[in-house]
């Protein structure tokens, strides 16, 4: 299964796996030339950075090799805050994006007679707006005294209890995550629409004849059949949440008092603002390993949980 789970337009048969094409006049040299551009870019900007990061992170004080940077991180409360916030980013973003994406896609694909394309497009629109622009718009929207949200509180007579969302340590991270979810949900909707549209109509009709309709049909037929889409989106959403930078940097700069710092913003702060490159490299390695662990766990869970159990298929009947 491709990570993205997408496949090319049907209508033509691909060849059986393993069957080799006759020689096209592309010898080993020509073959290498086709691979070369991607290989050079990949080696320079993906492979080399990973290895270089690991190397740089192992240079301690006075240039001695060792794990000093990791020891410093273990003692650094801001590092632990950043790690915790990164995990909160992944969990909250994913839950909200998957829920909103799947629910809205079901409404569009199964309950609308007309206007599907319009809703898909309008819901997707936040996805194409430059994140640095979004950051400033939402900073104003959240602003005490003149923001739109304050206006709403004021209108409801709650002006005195308006929370400074970005200025309060306990709410800053969640307030920014909401913006991220607002931007990305439309993408999840679109991908679920693609997934639902690809379900064989005959299967849905058969389920209906067997009496599965309404919520039962969604839960026992549609949701399991979108499993591939869900797995792809969970992996993609994890990486996206871990690498979010402009929203946090422009809305709180990791503050107040480092309360909304994530691993991504802390790498920037230590590496570029404080010029502690080896320490920042160690945090980058932690982020890299964290991404791999989370994706491995997600694939593990998907294998265990998404397989429709016999009980579920019985319920559907």
């Amino acid at each position, binding site marked *: 299964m491709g990570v*993205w789970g997408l496949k090319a337009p049907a209508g033509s048969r691909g060849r059986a796996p393993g069957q080799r*094409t006759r020689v096209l006049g592309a010898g080993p040299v020509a073959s290498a030339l086709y691979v070369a551009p991607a290989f050079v870019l990949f080696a320079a900007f993906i492979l080399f*950075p990973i290895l270089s990061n690991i190397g740089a992170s192992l240079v301690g004080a006075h240039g001695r090799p060792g794990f000093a940077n990791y020891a410093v991180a273990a003692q650094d409360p801001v590092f632990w805050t950043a790690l915790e916030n990164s995990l909160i980013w992944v969990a909250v973003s994913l839950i909200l994006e998957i829920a909103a994406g799947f629910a809205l896609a079901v409404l569009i694909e199964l309950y609308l007679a007309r206007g599907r394309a319009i809703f898909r497009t309008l819901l997707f629109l*936040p996805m194409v*707006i430059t994140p640095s622009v979004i*950051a400033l*718009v939402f900073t104003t929207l959240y602003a005490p005294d003149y923001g739109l949200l304050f206006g709403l509180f004021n209108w409801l007579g709650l002006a005195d209890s308006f929370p400074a969302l970005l200025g309060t340590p306990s709410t800053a991270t969640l307030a920014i995550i909401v913006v991220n979810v607002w931007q990305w949900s439309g993408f999840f909707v679109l991908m679920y629409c693609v997934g639902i549209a690809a379900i064989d109509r005959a299967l849905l009709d058969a389920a209906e004849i067997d009496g599965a309709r309404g919520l039962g049909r969604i839960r026992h037929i549609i949701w399991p059949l979108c499993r*591939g889409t869900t797995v792809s989106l969970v992996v993609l959403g994890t990486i996206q949440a871990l690498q979010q930078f402009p929203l946090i940097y422009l809305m709180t700069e990791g503050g107040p008092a480092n309360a909304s710092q994530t691993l991504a913003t802390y790498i920037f702060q230590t590496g*570029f603002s404080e010029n502690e490159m080896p320490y920042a490299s160690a945090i980058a390695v932690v982020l890299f390993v964290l991404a791999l662990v989370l994706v491995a766990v997600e694939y593990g869970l998907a294998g265990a949980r998404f397989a429709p159990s016999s009980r579920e298929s019985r319920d559907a009947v």
Partner: protein
Amino acid sequence: MRSEHGARRLALVLLLAATAASLLPSVYMVDISLRDSTESFAPVLFAPHPTLANYAAVLATGGLGRFFLNSVIVSTGSVALTLVAAICLSFAIARLKIRGGRVILLAVLSALLLPLASLLIPITVLLKHLALTNTYLGLIGPFAALGIPFATVILKEAMEAIPDELEEAATIDGASSLTLLVRIITPLIRSALIVVAVWQFLFSWNEFFLALVIMTQDAMKPLPLAPLYYEGPYMTDPGKLFAILTLIAIIPMIFYAVLQRWFVGGLMAGGVKG
């Protein structure tokens, strides 16, 4: 059926609410850009006296043009380089069936699992050594490298779906592999190419993090860095700042509005496998 009808109506209401929530911040942004300085701090969605004066003032001051030009060059270059590299790689894997193709594909796909922040420092250091900071190539290269995995997934699948007969006919005519790729394969995967180009363009156009650390000279900065540049000077005059934000946001919106039919069509035609 009565309940069916009610469900449809409820679905429409819920979708309209979600759409309103998804559009509201953009409407708010445009409205602030239409306010004069006496109203710009009003906590309302629509201020009473809209004016285009902020746009006139901002465009007269100039300066945005340079950001725009930089964005156009970087994004176009990134789309072109990604397409060339991914088309060639996909062709080698899907049609030439080169040895080790599966391993190469897996290696490329694993790059989808890397958060950009974890690559940022070494990329910056490398570009410094190559004297590529503050150059267009310094952004185009990393953007293309980051875009190749997704592009290769899409293009490889599209190429594999092309029937062998077409290729055989061309080969009998004595066409070389390059002629085959350029004349036969590439035109056949047009919808997949549009999906890749739109995605890569939007990614390159909006990317902030790499641009922030690689383009340190004002003359080289792309549009996503412009808000940072104008935030200070227009602190007390949000109308003008929001006019700039609207001008920045409107470009990818128009781009997507024009191409979304083919983008969504390409995704829909692709379907999803389990």
